[in-house]
C-alpha cells in the first residue's frame, strides 16, 4: 500500500471536517446531561437535522437557511422528547430510543424525492493570504464557517458553565433537582431549555453531514454518529474541552480509515469501516476502567423529577 499518498496536513484538515458533526451533537448533549437529562435520541435529532437542513438548503438555495432549519428541526424533535420526559415523566432511556426510531423513519419519509440531488454547499472562509500559509494555512484558516462555529460553541459552553450564573443553575439542577427546586429554581424550565439547545446542536451536526461533509441526502446517513456523540460525552467526563478532544480523536480515526481504504491497505474494507465503532467501544472500556469512571457524571442524570409537594 502507498502510505505516502496520505498527507498529514490534509489529514488534520479533513479530520476537523469529519469531527464537526459529532462535535456539534456532543457539545449539545453534554449541556443536556449536565442539566440532568439523558437524551439518547441524538441520532434521531441528527438525522432529522440532516434532512431538514438538506431540504431547506435545496429549496432555498442557501446553505445558511438549511442550517437554520436544521437547528429548528432538531430542537422540535428535542421538544417532543422534553415534553414527554419532563412533563409526562416518561422513561428517558425509552423515550430517547423512541426519538431515534421515529427520527430515522420521519427523515426517510421527508427525504423522498431528495435522494441523489446535490445541494449548494458552504464555501470556505477566505482569509486571503492566511489560508495560503503552508501547513498552518490549510489546518487553521482554510475551513468553512460551521467548523469555526462549532469551535466557538465549545468555548462558549465551557465559559457558560464555568463562569455564568445561568450555567451554575444548570449544573445545580443536574446535580440535585430536589435541592434546586427547594431553592425555588424551575427545574423543568431549565431542563427544557437545555434539551432544546441539545436538539438544535444535534440538528446542526446532522445538517453539516448532509450539506457539507457528504454533501447529499441518503437514508440513515448519520450511521451511528449520534450514538458516538453520546459516547464522547461519557469519554469527556462531561467537560467541554474534553468533548473537543474526543470528537477530534474520533474524526481522526474516521479520516485515517478512509485514507487507508483509498490507499489500498491490505486490511479488509469491512474491518476498516467497522474501526470507528470498535475504537469507540475500546475507548468506552478504557474510560470505565479508570478509577471512579462515572464519578464526574451529574448526580441526578436520567432521574425523573416530579415536584410532589
Amino acid at each position: 500500500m502507498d502510505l505516502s499518498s496520505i498527507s498529514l496536513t490534509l489529514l488534520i484538515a479533513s479530520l476537523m471536517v469529519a469531527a464537526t458533526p459529532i462535535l456539534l451533537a456532543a457539545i449539545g448533549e453534554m449541556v443536556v446531561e449536565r442539566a440532568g437529562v439523558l437524551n439518547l435520541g441524538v441520532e434521531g435529532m441528527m438525522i432529522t437535522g440532516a434532512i431538514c437542513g438538506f431540504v431547506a438548503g435545496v429549496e432555498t438555495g442557501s446553505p445558511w437557511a438549511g442550517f437554520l432549519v436544521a437547528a429548528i428541526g432538531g430542537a422540535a424533535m428535542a421538544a417532543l422528547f422534553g415534553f414527554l420526559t419532563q412533563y409526562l415523566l416518561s422513561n428517558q432511556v425509552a423515550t430517547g430510543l423512541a426519538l431515534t426510531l421515529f427520527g430515522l423513519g420521519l427523515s426517510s419519509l421527508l427525504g423522498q424525492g431528495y435522494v441523489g440531488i446535490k445541494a449548494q454547499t458552504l464555501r470556505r472562509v477566505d482569509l486571503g493570504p492566511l489560508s495560503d500559509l503552508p501547513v498552518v494555512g490549510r489546518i487553521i484558516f482554510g475551513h468553512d464557517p460551521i467548523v469555526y462555529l462549532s469551535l466557538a460553541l465549545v468555548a462558549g459552553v465551557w465559559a457558560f458553565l464555568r463562569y455564568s450564573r445561568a450555567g451554575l443553575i444548570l449544573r445545580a439542577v443536574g446535580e440535585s433537582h430536589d435541592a434546586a427546586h427547594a431553592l425555588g429554581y424551575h427545574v423543568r424550565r431549565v431542563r427544557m431549555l437545555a434539551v432544546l439547545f441539545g436538539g438544535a446542536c444535534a440538528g446542526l451536526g446532522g445538517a453539516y453531514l448532509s450539506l457539507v461533509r457528504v454533501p447529499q441526502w441518503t437514508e440513515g446517513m448519520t450511521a451511528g454518529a449520534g450514538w458516538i456523540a453520546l459516547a464522547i460525552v461519557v469519554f469527556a467526563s462531561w467537560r467541554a474541552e474534553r468533548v473537543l478532544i474526543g470528537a477530534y480523536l474520533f474524526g481522526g480515526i474516521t479520516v485515517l480509515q478512509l485514507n487507508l481504504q483509498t490507499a489500498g491497505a491490505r486490511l479488509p474494507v469491512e474491518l476498516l469501516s467497522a474501526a470507528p465503532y470498535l475504537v469507540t467501544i475500546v475507548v468506552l472500556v478504557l474510560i470505565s476502567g479508570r478509577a471512579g469512571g462515572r464519578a464526574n457524571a451529574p448526580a441526578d442524570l436520567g432521574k425523573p423529577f416530579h415536584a410532589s409537594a
Partner: protein
Amino acid sequence: MIRLVRRPAPSRFWAALSPLLAVALTMAVGAAMFAALGSDPLVALRTIFWEPIFGEFAWYFRGQLLVKAAPLILIAVGLAMGFRAGVWNIGAEGQYIIGAICGAAAGLALYPAETRLIFPLMVAAGALGGFLWAMIPAFLKVRFGTNEILVSLMLVYVAENLLASAAVSWLRNPESVGFPGSRNLSRWASSANPELFANTGVHWGVVAALIAVILGHVMLTRHLMGFHIRLAGSAPRAARFAGMVPGRMVVFCLGIAGVLAGMAGLFEVTGPAGQISIDFGSGYGFTAIIVAFLGRLNPLGIVAAGLLMALTYVGGDNAASNLGLPVAAISAFQGMLLFFLLAVDVLTNFRIQIGRGAVA
C-alpha cells in the same frame, strides 16, 4: 391548571388500556400524515390495518403476518427481560445478524451433506452466535462497568460490516458468478426452515416464538429469577438486598436476548430470507424494541404487539404497492406508536388533576 398527582399504587386499568389508547392516537395522527402525503386517510388505514386480515388476499397476508411477527416476538421477549431489569440491550439487531451468520456458517461448513441433524445444529450455532455477541457488552459491563447501551449499539455496526464481508467473501456462494450472497439455505433440504403447514406461514421460528413466550411468561410470574428481574427494574437497591447479583443479572438478561435474537436470525436466514446477503439486516432488532414496550414488557402482551407491528409491515407493503405510500411512512408510523405509548403511560402512575389546588 393541569397537574399530575401520583397515584398511591400503579393503576392496572390504565396499564392495560394505555397501549390501546396509544394505538388509537397513532392511527389518528397517522391518518393526518397519510392525508398530508396525498392519500385518502381512511383508505390508507383500511389498506394497512384491515385488508391484510380480512381483505381479498388475506389468505396470503395472514401467513405473512406470522412470518414477520415471529422474529419480532422472539427478539422482543428476550429484550423485555432486560428492559424490566434495567439492562438496556439495544443491539439485538447485531445479535440477530451474528446469529444468522454463525448458523449459516455452521450449516454451510457441512454442505452438501444430507442429514436432518444439520438444521438443529444450525439453530444451536445461531443461538450460540447471538449469545456470544451479547456477551461482549455483558462482559464489559460486568468487568469494567462500561455502558451496555452504547456498546451493544456500536456492535450493530460492527455486525453489519461482518455481514457485508461474509456476503461478499467468506460465505459467498462459490457457484454464483459475480453476485454477492451465500448459497440459498432455504433450498437445501438439510438447512431449510420450511412452512410447516401449507399457507399458514408457520415455520420453526413461529414455533420457537410461541415456546419463548410461554417460558418467558412462566419465568416472570412464577420463578424466583423472574421475580428478581422485576425487582431489579422496579427497585435496584431492594433487588441487591434481596440477593440478586447485578453482574449475573446483566449476563442473564443479555444472554437470553442474545440467544433469542440469534435464533430469530437463523430462522430468518434459513426461511424467509433464504441466504446471507448484504441487506439481510432488516431492522427487526430495532422494531422489536417498540414491540417490547408496546407489549408492556410482558410476554403475552408482546404477542399482541408483535402481531400488530407485523401488520404495519405487511399492510405498509400493501399500501406501498397499491396506494404508492412511501415505505418510510411505516417506520415513522412505528416510531410514533412508541411515542404515544410512552406519553399515555403517565396515566398508569399519575392522575391528571384539572384546576383546583392552586389558590394563589
